[in-house]
């Protein structure tokens, strides 16, 4: 098992290297100049040239890249061009916020999507199946921003039950933290819940017609044993892999959701950084996201292996 994980981490390194190169190269192609943004009103060529020189922006691109990479390997992600704060500090500040949002959204999606998928599969063609499908389709079709704004209007503005925006760390004030996060998590989770439901349903349908389910029924097991023990454990395997892939979608959704609820998270950080041509921040954030994505997939694969004895044997 440990060997398997080590092997996977080894394979992840080149992936990260390619991602960092792509990000580095691509943002150089973006229109706009960070120096202009930094200089503000004072745009005399001499000042601009001096800033450029200070930031080593006159070096060839590969040299800039290698310098940055060298820093990263030592844990130095550079400093924000805009605020002068170290990028690593910025990331450490914002990361927990987004992680909390993502985890809550994922939990929410799993709690709704997976049971709904199981019920829909067991009651295939019945009223519950139809209902679940219609709800799922709505969940997928309603845009996040619309749902978010509507919820703010209804729950915060009209009913006054929950705050419309803001953030509190879960370690400082857990209740307040959950209060501020519950709506964003719901908004972010709906689309995911719908996707999870559809996939759980189709995986369950496949498993329910398997020969070993017929065997389980022939043994006289109860419906609950057949569905939850014998079917679900097998249907879970593809769903886990999918959940890891959905993590990317989750981060993309988080950008938007954080904007709507003005949550000071990763999403907001990267949007601001891109608008300000704050190269170091963009690179740091993207690299972090890529690491997170790879880790999620690794975790999903490890869980799959643990759940699937056939794969355990292949290790």
């Amino acid at each position: 098992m440990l060997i398997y994980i080590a092997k996977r981490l080894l394979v992840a390194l080149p992936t990260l290297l390619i991602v960092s190169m792509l990000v580095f190269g691509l943002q150089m192609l973006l229109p706009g100049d960070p120096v202009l943004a930094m200089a503000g009103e004072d745009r005399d060529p001499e000042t601009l040239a001096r800033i450029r020189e200070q930031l080593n922006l006159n070096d060839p691109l590969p040299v800039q890249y290698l310098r940055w990479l060298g820093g990263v390997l030592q844990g130095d992600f550079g400093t924000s061009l805009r605020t002068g704060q170290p990028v690593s500090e910025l990331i450490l500040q914002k990361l927990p916020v987004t992680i909390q949002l993502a985890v809550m959204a994922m939990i929410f999606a799993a709690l709704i999507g997976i049971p709904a998928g199981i019920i829909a599969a067991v009651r295939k063609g019945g009223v519950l199946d139809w209902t679940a499908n219609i709800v799922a389709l709505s969940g997928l079709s309603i845009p996040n921003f619309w749902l978010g704004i509507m919820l703010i209007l209804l729950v915060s503005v009209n009913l006054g039950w929950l705050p419309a925006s803001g953030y509190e760390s879960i370690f400082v004030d857990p209740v307040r933290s959950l209060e501020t996060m519950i709506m964003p998590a719901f908004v972010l989770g709906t689309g995911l819940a719908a996707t999870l439901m559809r996939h759980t349903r189709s995986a369950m349908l496949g498993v329910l017609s398997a020969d070993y389910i017929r065997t389980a029924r022939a043994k006289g097991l109860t419906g609950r044993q057949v569905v939850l023990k014998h079917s679900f454990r097998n249907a879970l395997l593809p769903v886990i892999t999918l959940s890891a892939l959905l993590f990317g979608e989750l981060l993309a959704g988080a950008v938007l959701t954080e904007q709507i609820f003005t949550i000071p998270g990763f999403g907001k950080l990267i949007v601001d950084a891109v608008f300000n041509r704050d190269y170091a921040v963009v690179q740091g954030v993207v690299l972090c996201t890529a690491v997170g994505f790879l880790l999620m997939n690794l975790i999903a694969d490890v869980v799959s292996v643990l759940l699937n004895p056939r794969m355990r044997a292949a290790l």
Partner: protein
Amino acid sequence: MTQPILSLRNLTAAFPTEDGLKEVVRNISFDVAPGETVAIVGESGSGKSVTSLAIMGLLDKRARVSGQVLLDGRDLLGLPEKQMRQVRGNDIAMIFQEPMSSLNPVFPVGDQIAELLIRHGQVPRDQVAAEVLRLMDRVRIPNAHARIKDYPHQFSGGMRQRVMIAMALAARPRLLIADEPTTALDVTIQGQILDLIKEIQEEQGMAVLFITHDMGVVAEIADRTVVMFRGDHIETGATADLFTGATQPYTRALLAAVPRLGQMAGQDWPLRFPRVDMDSGTITAQPAVVDTVDRSATPVLSVRNLVTRFAAGSDLLGRPTGKVHAVEDLTFDLWQGETLSLVGESGCGKSTTGRSILRLVQPESGQVTLDGFDVLGAGPGDLRRMRRSGQMIFQDPFSSLNPRMTVGQTVAEPILTHKLVPRAQVRERAAELLAQVGLDGSMLDRYPHEFSGGQRQRVAIARVLGLNPKVIVADESVSALDVSIKAQVCNLLMDLQERLKIAYLFISHDMAVVERVSHRVAVMYLGEIVEIGPREAIFADPQHPYTKKLIAAVPIPDPARRGLRRAMQVDELKSPVRPIGFQPPKRDWRQVSDRHFVMV
């Protein structure tokens, strides 16, 4: 007669279709007495499996079932699901055809057996583990205490079927329904499983309802037999009576269509199957096959020291930890117009041999000469031309045709690819080819799903015929077909051989069919040919112990000879996986008679 344990009264099962309810089983009535073995026999679509699932109440919810299923006089059809669950696994247990997929892959086998004991409260909780072990020992799973925590994929097909039987026996049911339990198994394993079922039946006095299409198996184990045809109950009788004096034409036809081992004594060449009309039961003998082989010519296929190995396992750096010695030092010739059968059990390398010869897998070493082409040394151009000379027909007629192509397109594709006929004439040529395999040219525009299994196999044959192949590798090409259809397709292959002098490498595990169609037979074991010789020599005078075992294991469709089959030991095909760098031992051969060789 004693009070029957199970009585079916006018059992009818229907499924809703677009054209309304379709009855798949009509008015079935029969009894099973305690301790008795009753076989339901019939071809695919006869409704035998539906009948067994209806007894268990396991049919799809949409099915409409009427009539009565009486277990000790209690009608199961009216029983609420909750009470029915008490019956399943407890009073009636069931084992299925597919040992590979009938066990849940994510739970250890011991847990799956234990689950049933716990569910039906047969033994106190603290004794469950001991009972599971006893059951696994009972079905003779070697080293049971070490394997109790193993997962299904770690067992072979035969061993999995033993696990299924252990599970079925756990609650000491009074009736065991066995739905084609040995069909997917090798013939020597089949014998072991049949022996086991019989032994346990005698020990526990349980009744067995045995569903099968194999008349040999019926003769071997059934006291009474129920014959079904397209959902109808044709006749029921004591097995011995049915085999000697069936009253219904269909039963006679079914029995006549069964290839029997030993019918070919004294025949010099392959023999066509008699034509059996399944509706009227009339049997028409077919013309004898003429001699098609000229051994003075150069062989059309010549294989020398062929070796094919696959990597197995992987270490930290992804290097293989061992090798599957699938084909090991194979040497043989095949002449024009000749059929050489490769026989042996699953995993013995016979399919890999067929694929290696056509270079569908890459052999490690050796030499293959096919119609003058050096197959293993051929470049892309030569390989393409070689493909015309050597073609392959596969086992599963349902998955080997592209469902989105019409039959005409399927047959035309190889002709077009190899530019054998101008585009304008392709359709005409495709119709001609269909005619050659006995299909109507008007079927060109139909899709595979509109054809039966036998017809699809004919289409697959027409597809390869378009290239005028010299050698056809037929990999279990008739194994999935019903007996009557099997006979027709074999006859077609023999017709084509007579007319076109095609040579067949006929890969099969069905010894009775092999005896009928072959000129020569090669027996494979663990990647090696252990015996090769003229068909009559192999069947009448087998020399190698494995050949003897293989022939002895074939169930004979004759109830009078029941029990003559020797009791077989529990064993399994050994593994062909060897460590890297393994040097196979040097083999010696002994010539028994003309062209008959055996490995010493």
